[in-house]
């Protein structure tokens, strides 16, 4: 039929932007850093294929410790975020009505559209030794000296949890919202206590939201750069800083590329594991968000 070539042309034109986008901005760049990560410097301006950059990662405790620390803290942050966000999402989705609900959700959204740097700045003003909290503690006589809350892991975790909250609340609230009120009522009607209903009905129903939120928060946390750098101070080294350092202060792109690949692998692996353990699929999960 004559329609065939015309249809193919249309399809081709429609697909062109997606192919250009995914090809030029995603796939080929990743191929590039994959290739780059296997090149070793043998002399100035002379590079050869080799596994050196990866060997370096595994033989230098500094790197894999940073890597493990980042992964562990990201999981911790994700779990904390989930625990903190759940009651909020539950309230927004199931208790608040009409205007209050819209307000609460909007209020949740607002801080997150403001740059991460602004939020971090806020925490720095609050936490630093000469900052607001220390000042208030001193002024009220609760402490004798100014206290430094900044530049430690606690501050980093606080900042990261803060940064992840919204991305947890929205998918959770969406998932909880879709739970029919009648199902919860049926849970009570058949004799379930609050706890039974929460454990056997509400949480299983919210699972896709929990997984979606956790994945997003985890990805954002592990890929974060500014928050650990600015709040973490002298002790915290985040893995993204290692990548940044290799690219910017060491000019060692192949090593940085290897680190980038490793970060990508790590995060994909943890996401995959999370999906497997909870029996969810990525597509539906991300749509939830």
């Amino acid at each position: 039929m004559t329609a065939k070539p015309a249809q193919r042309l249309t399809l081709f034109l429609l697909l062109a932007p997606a192919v250009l986008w995914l090809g030029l901005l995603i796939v080929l760049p990743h191929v590039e850093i994959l290739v780059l990560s296997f090149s070793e410097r043998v002399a100035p301006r002379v590079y050869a294929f080799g596994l050196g950059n990866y060997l370096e990662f595994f033989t230098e405790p500094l790197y894999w410790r940073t890597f493990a620390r980042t992964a562990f803290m990201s999981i911790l942050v994700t779990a904390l975020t989930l625990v903190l966000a759940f009651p909020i999402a539950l309230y927004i989705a199931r208790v608040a009505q009409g205007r209050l609900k819209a307000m609460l959700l909007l209020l949740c959204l607002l801080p997150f559209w403001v740059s991460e740097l602004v939020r971090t700045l806020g925490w720095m003003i609050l936490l630093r030794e000469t900052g607001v909290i220390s000042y208030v503690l001193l002024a009220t006589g609760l402490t004798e000296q100014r206290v430094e809350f900044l530049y430690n892991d606690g501050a980093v975790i606080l900042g990261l949890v803060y940064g992840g909250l919204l991305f947890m609340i929205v998918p959770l609230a969406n998932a909880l919202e879709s739970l029919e009120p009648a199902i919860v009522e049926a849970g009570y009607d058949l004799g379930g206590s609050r706890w039974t209903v929460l454990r056997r009905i509400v949480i299983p129903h919210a699972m896709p939201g929990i997984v979606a939120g956790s994945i997003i928060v985890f990805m954002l946390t592990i890929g974060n750069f500014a928050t650990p750098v600015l709040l973490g101070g002298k002790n915290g080294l985040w893995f993204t800083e290692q990548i940044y350092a290799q690219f910017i202060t060491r000019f060692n792109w192949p090593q940085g590329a290897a680190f980038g690949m490793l970060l990508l692998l790590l995060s994909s692996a943890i996401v995959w594991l999370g999906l497997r353990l909870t029996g969810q699929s990525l597509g539906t999960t991300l749509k939830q968000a």
Partner: protein
Amino acid sequence: MASSTDLDIVNVTKRFGAHAAVDDVSFSVAPGEFFSILGPSGCGKTTLMRMIAGFEHPTSGDIRIRGQSMLGVPANKRPVNMVFQSLALFPMMSVGENVAYGLTCRGVSRAEAEERASRMLDRVGLKGFGERRVTALSGGQRQRVAIARCLVLEPTLVLLDEPLGALDLKLREHMKIELKQLQGTFNTTFAYITHDQSEALVMSDRIAVMNQGRFEQVGSPRELYHNPETPFVASFVGETNRWQGEAAPASGGAIAVRLPSGAVVQGQGRAASGALAFVRPEAVALAQDPASLSTLPNRFEGRVSAVLFDGAASSLLIDTAGFEQPVRAVLPQAGPLAGIHVGAPVHLGWTADAMKVFAA
């Protein structure tokens, strides 16, 4: 001493703001009875049922189950269970887990709960379905799971909120009968909500017709159909012709109604000035020959304006002099008038007893 009623609703009122969703309603349901509440959308049926189940609290009045007041008893402690309009099966559990849920909540051991759930599934005709996901069931099967989930708890009272609403026509017809039979087998008291008069009529022992938060009439299906006490009941239950006019006295205890369009009709009832008159289509007698209707106080001439053939439920619309809207009658499928067609002249009439008159 055991109470002689399973449920007593005593002057219950529920207000949402200024609006009384349920307005001073009282009734009792006897053990083993199939009691229905029938009313149009928004009349307060669900609100009433939710108060019985414990999800809403009455503004005033008392709710007693087997004589014990339920005020202050939370939903999960009441001996009533509810079948929701949406069924509200737990999609995250298998069929067996759904049915066993209530038992495990009561602290029954896992093994025993499963055992009892599977026996209950047998009884509702779902033997071997325990492992299935609830999403893998047909509409009628889901229905039965929802009921099994309640019955396994052996409640004093089962509440059903339009449980057939989501089913398609053929299945609904079927489930009507099945539900009634299930209730008979278990001999449990059912309180059933619906806005579909046919459901209520077919299944119930007694029906309360509800309108705008109040009960209009409580009675058996036949009482409601044949002896409606209010114009609302007369028009809501069953097909009917309805006319509005002015009351005028008539002979023999009857009452006459003069329609604005000219006709005068005679019926039973009372009305002072404005009057509403109701006649069921099956009470309208048709004849080719006016003589055969001569004994009837209401006799008219008309012309068929539409034949609504629908098998056993067919009807005729007859444009009749003195009436604004066509009169509806049952289509004769046998006898001399069988095969009557649009435009044919016809004589029609009905007895005074067949026409109910109410004050407008």
